[in-house]
């Protein structure tokens, strides 16, 4: 058979409003989308506190805080699934756990965390609310995930929103500073209407036949 075996006709009808499919993970991750145009830094990806202390000697306290904060962030922002099987099909078997905020949801295990230095030489009281103060600087941490099986998340460090930060064989990732700040979905719009002028010019072209049915071909 050379044609589509079946088509969901109900979903194609326009005379009544089709119910919106509300994926669970959307509600939580709506705050995750990155802003744009932020400067970048090399961030270490630590699989555990020990690796963090190896790179940051005498910073046990910073590394422990970073780890806990990243775990909290992972709980809040990791992709959620309604079945363990679904989660494991993306992240590998035995790599998913029950969400502690809702025991009906499953999410991937946090594979590591990135530690970002927001700024240095500040006092405890002047760190932005999403960061924490340690050793005369403001820091923030971000969880990363990977698949222990196959699938599209294998071999790489991925943020909760699916952004790929580099290969698991690498100990660092090049990330924009936005990774460590609260995720924005919106930004101030400076202007509008910078696209569409060529189409407008072409449709107001006169000629013997009406033009402008559409811009496909």
């Amino acid at each position, binding site marked *: 058979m050379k044609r589509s075996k079946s088509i969901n006709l109900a979903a194609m009808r326009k005379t009544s409003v089709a119910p919106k499919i509300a994926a669970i993970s*959307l509600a939580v991750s709506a705050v995750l989308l990155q*802003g744009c145009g932020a400067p970048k830094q090399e961030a270490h990806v630590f699989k555990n506190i020990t690796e963090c202390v190896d790179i940051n000697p005498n910073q046990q306290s910073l590394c422990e805080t970073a780890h806990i904060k990243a775990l909290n962030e992972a709980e809040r922002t990791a992709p959620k699934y309604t079945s363990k099987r679904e989660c494991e099909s993306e992240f590998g078997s035995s790599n998913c756990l029950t969400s502690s905020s809702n025991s009906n949801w499953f999410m991937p295990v946090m594979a590591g965390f990135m530690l970002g230095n927001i700024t240095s030489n500040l006092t405890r009281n002047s760190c932005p609310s999403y960061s924490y103060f340690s050793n005369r600087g403001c820091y923030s941490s971000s969880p990363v995930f990977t698949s222990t099986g196959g699938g599209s998340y294998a071999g790489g460090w991925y943020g909760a*929103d699916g952004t790929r930060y580099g290969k698991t064989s690498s100990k660092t990732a090049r990330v924009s500073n936005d990774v460590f700040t609260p995720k924005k979905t919106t930004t101030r719009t400076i202007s509008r209407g910078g696209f569409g002028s060529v189409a407008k010019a072409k449709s107001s072209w006169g000629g013997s036949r009406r033009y402008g049915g559409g811009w496909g071909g």
Partner: protein
Amino acid sequence: MQRVATSERPHWRDLAEEYGFQFHTMHGKPYWDETAYYQFSLRQIEEDIEAPTEELHQMCLEVVAQVVKDEQLLEKFCIPEAYWNAIHNSWQNKQPSLYSRIDLAYNGTGPAKLYENNADTPTSIYETGFWQWLWLEDQINNGKLSGNTDQFNSLQEKLIARFQQINSTNSQQTLHFSCCKDTAEDRGTVQYLQDCAEQAGITNKFVFIEDIGHGEGDCFTDLDDQIIKRMFKLYPWEFMLREDYGPLLLSAETQFLEPWWKSIVSNKALLPMLWQLFPDHPNLLPAYFEDQRQHISTGTFVKKPLFSREGANISIIKDGQLQNNIDGPYGEEGYIYQSYYPLPRFDNNYTLIGSWLINDEAAGISIREDSSIITQDLSRYLPHVIV
């Protein structure tokens, strides 16, 4: 290959209303035409259309591979220099493609000939993936056609599957969809693609091209000031690169469907390049650049702008003299010449086959008919069957 006259379903316009097919009649004239259908054998479809479509696509990819790294060719394709890197990176990074439509002249015997590749903004996908499929279901259900009548059309299933594939690493990010205002046809086409994306579990949101904003941090925003991270556009790359927000495309980090590199395939400079790389290929027509005019001084050629659509600004040249032409607003960037190979005639109509690919897989065909030899935006759309 035959053209078979048949009767319209009495209720088809009500059905169109029910399923949101609003542009079935345009400017008072029929566009969707079910007073006849075309009939093919399975061999004709598989050997003469499906296989050559996939082969032609691979040949086009070879052209892209050559052009993206060659400044002289990029200039010949009239791509502004500021965007050369972006196009090159888009190809190197293998940014995914959703679909293309290759236009073929084919009469049932002999190799189909490539007219052009609508690789950036192909239209008629709704009529093809859904509406003509529904027509066949109806004809089988009401006994007009036998139960084992088939159609070369797995477009909708493949579209949904491809959306799922493209989405796999971005599962929670909104995919914006965009087209111009004031065109029911484009809005209907985009709605269809949104419907497919919805069935693939993708959060989708519509914004008109003219409403897209410049967000702080040099990105694009929709009317809710939401950052546009990935966007399907039914709007040509060659327009965007020449508009005020063109330079923003370089900083915005927005992923597009179709991706940057497809703009090389939709450019008619593709045609002389194909002829250079694959001369005498059975599915190709000889084609030449302006600077190869020695080849067109005798014989009949079709002169086509690098950037044009739906037959606009096409003219036919015989032995160097203009024969007929279609008006239009295109041609600024120059032209190519393709050997004249007329469309086949069925009754009083010239018939063009649009052969679709979803990514690199042949997925189905659409049929357009016109009393004029040059297919245009008002050319009628007819269904087909395989028997």
